[in-house]
């Protein structure tokens, strides 16, 4: 069991020592290790997305009393692979009236930002690529950058539906980002640190979801809005805006947006697991299995919400965020501060 627990850390150490034996300086060896880690993350993300999309289609089917994809392979598990091959070989259309540079860079910016989120996520005991001492701040600030990519897509497409979708994404971001940050502040106050490893260590005895239930609920609502998932998927409201900011994108460029959304989904769920459910802590299984398990359970709740609730109106979301979520998170902060002071 000890071997399984530190398997990946031992592997990384082995690679570094091997590289240094080949005559590399420690700095170069570290850079090579970083590149390997990035490739690993890209591979994990891709495989993860193929599973997630299949899972979402299956689960949406079960929720609607259907079967979901079941013709390609057992339980239809090759369905997403067929879709990926098709999207890779589709024609790449760039409409003549678009802003070419912005149109082309928008999907790349979106996927790069969502991959950047994975830098601080601790996949296991000591398995974060960089354990920043302000990891939570980094996560929130980088996560909110994704809206810029959506705005670029909407503006560059030169299409009214795209622009409306992008405007909605920005308006939505302004309203959910504040309660998102505030809801995490309570956890940070109890843990006394912005570092992911410290926050997980502080949950040794009790998970923060029991100490901060209100914060968890507000975080969950705000995170749903950040992910542009139902019931807050206004930027890509198919019935009103064709496909929102993605209307003019075809083939792999569109698939990159789709990829990035699911990448974000896993990152935000892993973040929820770290902040409220004890991160990689858990009995019996090695730590690098516990975080994905918890993240997948949280993602199932996201799926459940998306396929159960109807889309709400834009102004409803904004007034809900400003008039309900922000006051609630502020009161939560004050109460947390008072209790901390009282029991010091």
């Amino acid at each position, binding site marked *: 069991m000890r071997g399984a627990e530190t398997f990946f850390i031992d592997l990384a150490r082995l690679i570094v020592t091997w590289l240094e034996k080949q005559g590399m300086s420690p700095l170069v060896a570290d850079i090579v290790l970083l590149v390997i880690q990035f490739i690993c993350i890209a591979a994990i993300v891709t495989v993860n997305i193929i599973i997630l999309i299949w899972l979402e289609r299956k689960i949406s089917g079960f929720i609607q009393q259907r*079967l979901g*994809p079941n013709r390609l392979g057992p339980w239809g598990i090759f369905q997403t692979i067929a879709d990926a*091959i*098709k999207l890779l070989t589709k024609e790449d259309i760039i409409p003549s009236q678009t802003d070419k540079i912005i149109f082309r860079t928008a999907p790349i910016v979106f996927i790069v930002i969502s991959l950047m989120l994975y830098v601080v996520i601790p996949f296991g005991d000591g398995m974060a690529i960089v354990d920043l001492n302000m990891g939570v701040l980094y996560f929130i600030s980088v996560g909110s950058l994704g809206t810029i990519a959506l705005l670029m897509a909407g503006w560059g497409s030169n299409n009214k539906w795209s622009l409306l979708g992008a405007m909605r994404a920005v308006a939505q971001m302004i309203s959910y980002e504040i309660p998102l940050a505030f809801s995490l502040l309570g956890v940070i106050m109890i843990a006394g640190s912005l570092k992911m490893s410290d926050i997980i260590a502080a949950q040794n005895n009790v998970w923060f979801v029991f100490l901060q239930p209100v914060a968890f609920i507000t975080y969950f609502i705000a995170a749903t809005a950040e992910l542009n998932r139902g019931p807050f998927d206004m930027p890509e409201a198919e019935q009103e805006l064709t496909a929102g900011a993605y*209307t003019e994108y075809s083939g792999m460029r569109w698939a990159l947006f789709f990829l990035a959304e699911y990448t974000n989904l896993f990152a935000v769920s892993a973040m929820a697991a770290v902040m409220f459910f004890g991160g990689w802590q858990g009995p019996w299984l090695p730590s690098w299995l516990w975080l994905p398990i918890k993240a997948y359970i949280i993602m199932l709740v996201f799926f459940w919400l998306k396929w159960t609730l109807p889309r709400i109106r834009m102004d409803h979301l904004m007034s809900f965020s400003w008039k309900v979520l922000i006051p609630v998170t502020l009161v939560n902060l004050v109460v947390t501060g008072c209790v901390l002071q009282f029991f010091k």
Partner: protein
Amino acid sequence: MVLEKDVKMLEKNNIIVTTLEKIWNWGRAHSFWPLSYGCNCCPIELMASGAARFDIARYGYEVFRASPRQADLLIVAGPVTVKMKPVVQRVYAQMPEPKWVLAMGNCAISGGPFKDGYSVLPGCDTFLPVDVYVPGCPPRPEALFNGLLELKAKVLGQR
């Protein structure tokens, strides 16, 4: 020219030879994302085919895209009027290659009961390259699935 003999020899050494087109066609044939166009009764059957009893998702064809840029298959499920023709033409032109057209119902195939009307075109194949015709007024979801599977066989090169 690659000889059959060489291919056989490679297979003996555990090397499988295939053409990229086969893999691409496999992917394309199993993920038609439809863009639907319709008037009234065929779309109701289309909705029924997406719902619980028939479930088009079993074949993986349930991803109805509203934007033609992301669609592969134009399902014409209704009569095309003279006024609507440029719109349908434009939507078809906006779809990225490779793309297919499925004419669903008698109106889309031949104009149906409206074919003598001054404003209705006698079938959408007067201006679109239709791949599969699904007759019926309206056709049942099973008929639509049969049409989709015929199209799949066509893409896979089986007919």
